[in-house]
């Protein structure tokens, strides 16, 4: 396992409020990592920084074998480098079908001309159907994405993430709004992905995190409070004080 992403000494201030404070974090490939922490700890902001949505005031974000800095890349370039993201609030293209959503996400050339001349191949269709099967939406390929349930949208977004075949998956609260069964299936999907990729999962649900069975990082006030196995961090008195005890 080699280091894929390394975040070091990163800080972000919003209107004088330090949302991320000298944060350092590293993940290898393949690896599964869970991030937990109270509301406002900076978990989503951390993902915003890695994906180029928010620019940090200081610090470094280093990616891949060639140790490239992500800070100078655009959002689209970061995605093309191999970082995919599932947002906290599921964001799919509501006016378009499940099939269209997956097709747009498929890993293919992203340039305007290539897309204009793109004609879907059989391999594309097979891949879309395979993904739809994995996320339990095989019967909904022609359904307009705005009309499926919240849990199904979560899955569709996970499907779109997998379709991109990223090396690093950033998954923000995937289980919100899901039934117990759906959650279990989601953990299976993520664990499968983590066999070959780096996966970072933000989740509040401890049962879900336990099932992921991976190293856990606890964020608090924008920096790492504790790191280790779930049992290790949940036994930490500071973690109990700021997060679990509340």
């Amino acid at each position, binding site marked *: 396992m080699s280091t894929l992403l390394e975040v070091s000494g990163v800080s972000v201030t919003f209107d004088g409020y330090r949302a991320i404070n000298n944060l350092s974090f590293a993940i290898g490939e393949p690896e599964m990592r869970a991030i937990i922490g109270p509301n406002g700890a900076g978990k989503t902001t951390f993902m915003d920084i890695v*994906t180029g*949505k928010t620019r940090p005031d200081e610090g470094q974000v280093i990616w891949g074998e060639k140790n490239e800095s992500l800070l100078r890349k*655009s*959002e*689209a370039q970061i*995605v*093309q480098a191999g970082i995919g*993201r599932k*947002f906290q609030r599921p*964001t799919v*293209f*509501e*006016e*378009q*079908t499940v*099939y*269209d959503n997956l*097709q*747009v*996400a498929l890993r293919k050339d*992203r*340039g*305007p001309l290539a*897309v*204009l001349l*793109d*004609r*879907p191949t059989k391999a594309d269709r097979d891949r879309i159907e395979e993904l739809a099967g994995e996320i339990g939406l095989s019967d909904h390929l*022609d359904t307009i994405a705005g009309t499926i349930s919240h849990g199904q949208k979560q899955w569709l977004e996970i499907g*779109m993430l997998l379709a*991109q075949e990223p090396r690093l998956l950033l998954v923000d609260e995937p289980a919100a709004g899901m039934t117990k069964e759906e959650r279990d299936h989601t953990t299976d999907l993520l664990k499968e992905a983590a066999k070959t990729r780096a996966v970072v999962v933000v989740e509040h649900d401890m049962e879900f995190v336990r099932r992921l069975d991976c190293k856990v990082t606890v964020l608090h006030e924008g920096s790492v409070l504790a790191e280790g196995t779930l049992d290790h961090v949940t036994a930490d008195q500071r973690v109990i004080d700021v997060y679990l005890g509340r």
Partner: protein
Amino acid sequence: MGKLFAENRSVPVFLMILAAITLAITVMSEGYGTGAISTSLVKTLGMTLCLCLIALAMDLVWGYCGILSLGHFAFFALGGYMIGMWLMYARTADTIAAAQAAQPIPPTAVELNDAIAVQIFGVVGGDSFPWMWAFSDSLFLQLALVVLAPGLLAFVFGWLAFRSRVTGVYLSILTQAMTLALSLYLFQNDTGLRGNNGLSGLQNLPGVEAPQALTSVWFLWASALALGLGYLLCAWVVSGKFGKVVRGIRDDEPRVRFLGYPVEGFKLFIFVLSAVIAGIAGALYYPQAGIINPDELAPIASIYLAVWVAIGGRGRLYGAVIGAAVVSLASTWFTGGRAPDIPLGGYTIQWVDWWTVLLGLGFVLVTLYAPKGLGGLIDLMSRRKDA
């Protein structure tokens, strides 16, 4: 998938209706048929087809990509000016050459050129050709400029605006500023395009003896052909994966960016394509109108265009065409003095004034009760038939 199919199905239907209308006008025209439709009405109808074409262009950027451009008549008028320069030059050159040929000593090329320049620019006190008329003697180059000039303007404007991530109402205001600035520039007498006189006599084709009764029908055909091809092109662009990405940009731009698409490139592509289509529409429109001047670029014209597309139903190509046709023809009728005034005792409703009120009312009603526009009604009907 169903939506896609419905859209593709609209293409053959649209082309057939367009061909039928064109044929019907032709057989009723003065030039080629019974004469039931006057030559000036043929011109109005041909111009309406050009307005439908720019409405298509507008729908492409606004309805599909969410860029509310309120400056599209800048591209339209640029296309018109580019073809107008050749028309004016070539026709003036013909008449001057004919007049001077009668003289005992034949004029030199320089004398001929000066005489043409005086003839064209005398109204603004000029006697030589401004730099932008360098290619005006070449139909081929001016035709190329019909595409290049609007395309280049759109490229530069779009590149600057999209790269700085100007969106929404700010972008709309910028496009208004663009068309206003261009119009103010053209209003000046010394900018090379004859100031507020504009270019005139464009209905006379150089070297063509045929009467207007015939040429008006030719332009009708050309406009119909351009509209048909434009419809095909737009339908193709928005049908495949490109259309899905572009609609994604309209509905959730950041999401598309986080799928790794260079959103700016897509917007620029659509914007430039749309401007080029608008330029071609303008190049066909003004020879039928006969005159072009900087008033054509007034910001209000581009706002009307958005109203047409909204009334017709954006995000569906036939909606834009229907909106442009219905509203612009109604506008011609109401403001052309043909609509009967309504006397109300002490006050008389004169449609020339009240048409704008009617249009505004129609716009509000459509926005409130038929947000998908007139085209949305067609969707409803065709769906009911399917069921």
